[in-house]
């Protein structure tokens, strides 16, 4: 890339070396090129191809991939189709998880970031402690918590029993406990990431604003509302959108900890799409589901952007 760049600068600037800057020219596009190439090859082209697949009865190994038009989409809205119940059940599961995990993943890390942003002894250690679980892969945390949360043999129920609380909660096999577990584990696992972003954001807020607020007689709460929150707005938008998208893509935790149980109540959309496409080889149907999920996420993201904008 360095070579390309060097060449680019010489080829655009050398002949007109005497002239002052003459507009952006090719340079920005060259900077963009590597990314754009990857984006086109691995995101845009497959996405377009996926749209094409979703219009077919598609099994990549069968010679016939009949064109079915919008049938795969229609099936998702027809209550008599084999996919209808399962798909919407899985969308609901994704929705439930997102609704409960996002507020926690936005608020709790913010609180932690506020505390960790103050100066006290051992601050770095705490920062590391909160970030540490994020480093673990989903397989590790999944297996770990599946054992800890086992309703009959797990450490969590044993500890609760030891202090006189109910000791037979169905953490992984009953409702609403399965959701409590999945949300709880996810918050524990990922809050460090959002906290780090918040800390970076907090450090960008000019100290003078806090000084000015103090001069104006603002208390802690007023300081937070009128200085910290507005200062964090871009960071907050990033965290909210990112967390919504991440939560909507939840898959590994439910797959490993609850296996979608009880019944298929905790089988998320991604989990079902993967089963339909990769296990049952109905790629067309799975692609149609992916597009519906994508559409839903686009809408939610747009609404979120809107909400943040109207506050201005």
């Amino acid at each position, binding site marked *: 890339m360095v070579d390309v760049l060097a060449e680019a600068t010489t080829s655009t600037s050398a002949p007109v070396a005497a002239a002052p800057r003459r507009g952006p020219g090719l340079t920005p596009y060259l900077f963009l090129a590597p990314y754009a190439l990857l984006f086109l090859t691995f995101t845009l082209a497959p996405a377009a191809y996926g749209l094409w697949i979703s219009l077919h*009865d*598609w099994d990549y190994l069968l010679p016939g991939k009949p064109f079915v038009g919008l049938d795969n989409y229609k099936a998702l809205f027809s209550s008599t189709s*084999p996919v209808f119940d399962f798909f919407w059940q899985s969308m609901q599961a994704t929705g439930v998880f997102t609704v409960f995990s996002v507020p926690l993943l936005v608020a709790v890390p913010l609180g932690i970031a506020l505390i960790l942003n103050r100066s006290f002894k051992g601050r770095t250690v705490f920062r590391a402690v909160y970030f540490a679980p994020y480093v673990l892969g989903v397989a590790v945390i999944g297996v770990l918590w599946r054992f800890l949360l086992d309703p009959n043999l797990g450490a969590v129920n044993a500890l609760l029993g030891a202090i006189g609380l109910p000791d037979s909660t169905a953490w992984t*096999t009953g409702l609403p406990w399965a959701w409590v577990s999945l949300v709880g584990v996810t918050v524990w696992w990922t809050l460090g990431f959002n906290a780090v972003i918040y800390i970076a954001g907090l450090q960008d807020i000019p100290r003078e604003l806090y000084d000015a607020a103090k001069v104006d007689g603002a208390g802690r709460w007023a300081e937070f509302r009128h200085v910290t929150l507005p200062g964090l707005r871009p960071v907050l938008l990033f965290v909210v959108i990112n967390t919504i998208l991440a939560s909507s893509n939840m898959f*590994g935790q439910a797959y*490993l900890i609850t296996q979608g149980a009880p019944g298929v109540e905790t089988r998320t959309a991604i989990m079902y799409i993967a089963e339909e*496409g990769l296990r049952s080889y109905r*790629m067309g149907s799975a692609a149609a589901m992916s597009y519906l999920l994508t559409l839903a996420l686009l809408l939610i993201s747009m609404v979120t952007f809107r909400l943040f904008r109207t506050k201005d």
Partner: protein
Amino acid sequence: MKPHLSRRGLLGLGVGAGGAVLLGACGDDGPNPVVGGGQNAQPAATNYTGPNVALTFWNGFTGGDGPVMKALVDRFNSENPNIKVTMNVYEWADYYQKVPAAVSTGNGPDLGIMHVEQVATNAARGVVLPLDDVAASLQLKEDDFSPPVWRAGVYNNKRYAIPLDVHPLGMFYNKSVLEKAGLDPDNPPKTKDDYMKALDALKSKGVQGHWATPFPFTGTMQFESLTWQFGGQLFDEQASKPLFAEAPGVQALTWLTDLVKNGYSPKNVAQDADLIALQNGKAAFNWNGIWTINTLKGVKGLTWGVSALPTIGSQPAAWAGSHNFVQFKQRTPDANKLQAGKVFINFISKNSIEWAKGGQVPARKEIREGAEFKGLTEQAAIGSQIDNLHFPPSVPGIPDAMATIDTAINEAILLRKEPGKALADAAAKASQILEQNRKKYGG
């Protein structure tokens, strides 16, 4: 060892599985459909004298069985200097997604292992080759194997798989727990009455004897075993409709669910908790796969035994899986490689007593009935069920329909739905899936 792809099934796909659509992008139109006997129409020779060839052999033996197979492969390589077999191991779930994709791009392995219920699907999708010639030239016939195992590898009147082993369910029991409840640790229950008496005796000592698990491992396998015991079937022979929601299936699931309702099993048993409970002395019995032998051998201080499943219904029956050899379709068929592959299949099959030591029941009768296998006490105890084993019909896409059973078992054993209702709901779903499959595979 994975019968359906349910457990940990899609894990290997990772978090980016939303890219289901992307997978379609990696091949062209796939290999040609299987027509006629094709390149395997002639009987194959039983030895290989051609130029040196290298074969790739993929399988999912990630557990204690991996090293056993590797040792067999090494022995084959040293005895056949003109053939070099290289073995690659993947998680089964990965394997079943990787292999078709690899075959479609022309990068597939030469040889592999498949579970019996996967064979028809992969045959219909043109991933594996017919192996009638191997059976013919090696003079393998039904008599050399057990009929259900041997027949399970046939799809559309052509053989696609040579069985290596069967891995049935057996009844594992904790001897010290039985003793504590005043039961004979060397004479585990064989009938329904004995079993219920044992569970009562255990219950009176505060032990929940049989943990009923709502998960496919091994709840679904227990349900399937019991359905056959009560004289039922999961599907009709052509898999035109599900039969698991009929009376025998309901009886089977009711019996399992009643274990929970009557306090013989705790509620809300989680994945693998039933086996852990057996090891911890919290349960007395666990109906689990033959692979559990090696797990339990590794537990220090545990005194345990294993026998055939007790007959709860009207006849003995047990769930079993089976590992089968397959040859994969190549872009450009290489007659030398195909023949060398067949020599390899025959070699491993003939030496499957070594394989049995890894915790399996050899599919070959002569080996199963030999003195050496009888010396493997645990394997032999489970292997005694060989004629009472059942396999799903050889119909493409059958694993998709079977997945609906997993959900019904889960709902019923977690006491969220009555057994009859759970099974009926699943059967309605399964009929739709079967119909979808018929349309897709032209059944």
